[in-house]
């Protein structure tokens, strides 16, 4: 079974500063993979390099392959990339308020997504398909409305309809629900899950919300400082994190109260407790320490952490830490 998306040795840099280093990432057919990490950990840059939409002076190196596309995506020219984008690969962005053109009717925008790639034979067919898609995201009768007449949640559903219009092999969602109310959030997540399931599309879901990853994804990659520090099945990573950063992230996100998940994090008591936090802040880009990128904030860091920790485990499940949690060295 060949993977839908294969990213190898992806490095993204501005001038000489590496923002993302050596990212390895695969997404299988129909698989739902989460990419989590704090702001500035390189999640969005990873997604944008897959689409070839990095800003002008930001450069990507490495390899990105997509099934059904017979060329390398990194460094492909605009003409070739524009054939891939929106057809084999679609993206939902974070900010629904600005993701739609304010001067075009919603229905036209969805229909246009199909006409670009000629997946419908005529304007008429595309409009009919657009109306069906909008109905699918539970927005019947909005074909002729303008974006400003819709709420944030409604707009995000339009964006989703637009992204799913050409049945892409891979859907990338970059914090699709972060800007939405919690109640709307659940609905949009549900629509995303149903949308990809109906099309057997794979999903790469970027978020910093662990609870969302737990409900949506099967497998998860944890990013920090532009590197993948841990990956594995969601249940495995969230119940038995190995990397110290993942451990801190999970402790800080109070998953068990939301999810009644694992109870052995050790701090749960009767009184309203303070959430443990990871000391320090994410350093600015280019100022991460050598070796293990997390060592300046890690309570377990030792001299050996000055060398880059090797990847332990298989490509789909493992971690990069000299002193992993749950090992005998603590």
């Amino acid at each position, binding site marked *: 079974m060949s993977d839908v998306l294969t990213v190898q040795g992806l490095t993204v840099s501005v001038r000489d500063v590496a923002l993302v280093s050596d990212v390895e990432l695969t997404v299988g057919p129909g698989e739902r993979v989460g990419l989590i990490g704090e702001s500035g950990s390189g999640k969005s840059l990873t997604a944008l390099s897959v689409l070839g939409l990095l800003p002008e002076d930001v450069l990507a190196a490495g390899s990105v392959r997509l099934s059904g596309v017979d060329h390398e995506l990194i460094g492909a020219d605009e003409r070739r990339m524009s054939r891939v984008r929106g057809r084999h690969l679609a993206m939902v*962005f974070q900010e629904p308020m600005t993701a739609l053109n304010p001067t075009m009717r919603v229905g036209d925008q969805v229909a246009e997504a199909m006409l670009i790639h000629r997946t419908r034979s005529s304007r008429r067919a595309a409009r009919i398909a657009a109306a069906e898609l909008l109905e699918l995201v539970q927005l019947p009768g909005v074909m002729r409305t303008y974006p400003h007449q819709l709420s944030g949640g409604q707009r995000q559903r339009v964006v989703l309809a637009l992204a799913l219009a050409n049945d892409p092999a891979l859907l990338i969602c970059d914090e699709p629900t972060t800007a939405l109310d919690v109640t709307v959030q659940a609905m949009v997540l549900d629509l995303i899950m149903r949308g990809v399931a109906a099309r057997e599309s794979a999903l790469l879901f970027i978020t910093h919300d662990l609870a969302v990853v737990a409900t949506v994804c099967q497998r998860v990659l944890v990013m920090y400082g532009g590197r993948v520090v841990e990956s594995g099945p969601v249940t495995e990573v969230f119940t038995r994190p190995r990397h110290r950063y993942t451990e801190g992230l999970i402790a800080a996100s109070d998953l068990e109260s939301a999810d009644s998940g694992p109870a052995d994090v050790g701090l749960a008591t009767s009184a309203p407790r303070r959430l443990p936090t990871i000391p320090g802040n994410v350093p600015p880009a280019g100022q991460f320490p050598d070796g293990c990128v997390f060592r300046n904030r890690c309570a377990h860091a030792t001299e050996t952490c000055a060398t880059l920790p090797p990847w332990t485990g298989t490509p789909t499940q493992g971690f990069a830490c000299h002193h992993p949690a749950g090992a005998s060295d603590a």
Partner: protein
Amino acid sequence: MNRRLNPSLIVGGFIVGLIVLIALLSFIWTPYDATLVDSSIRLAKPSWSHWFGTDKFGRDILSQLMVGARTTLFVGLVAVGVAAVIGVPVGILAAMTPRWPSEVIMRSNDLLLAFPALLLAIMFGAVFGASTLTAMIAIGIATVPSFARVIRSGALQVMRTEYVLAARAAGRRPVPIAVRHVLPNVVSLITVQASVSFAIAVLAEAALSFLGYGTAPPTPSWGRMLQESQEFLFSAPRLAVFPGLAIAVAVLGFNLLGDGLRDRFDPRLEDRR
């Protein structure tokens, strides 16, 4: 205050509307034939039969002003048309191309901006012959840089929005993005810039006609009426006052309209009033 109908917009719109009406009216009716020479009433003072008096050839001033309004509007339309047709694509192109080509476009734009508009128009007149059309095209070309500059800054903002990123992510090619996404979102800027340029063009045509490089006789033009009034500036100053006033009011009208449209459309002014 109601931004939709601010005072600048109302007054500017009224003045511009009035000029347009007068120009249209001149096609079907003027008090006298604007080019009718009658030596018996040379330099007549304002009277009931000739409200604004007559000029040195005995032509009715009011009729000339009315027909002159046509010239003024025609000049403005062509000059603004030329400026917009060249300036808007250049501005959008400069916003969408990578850094180096964009710099080249904008620096050559600055070069043209630094060149005096009237000098360019006089050069055009000298090379292609003085006529209303050459003057207007020259003025239009001279107004291109300011158009390009304003549209570029607006287009840059649009290019940074997520819907343009989303359009690219959907596989849209640059030209359709420019036409479908960027252009409709800078239309308000184009409208504002057009009305301001209109005022500049009206003024420039008057100056050129005054210098003898604009509208050729006998077509009435406010600028040429000013020029012909020169020799009577002390004996019959009204010959200069009426066309001068007409030019001033027209320019004021277009500037107010531009201001009003800007207040109406510029979202940054949303909360200031």
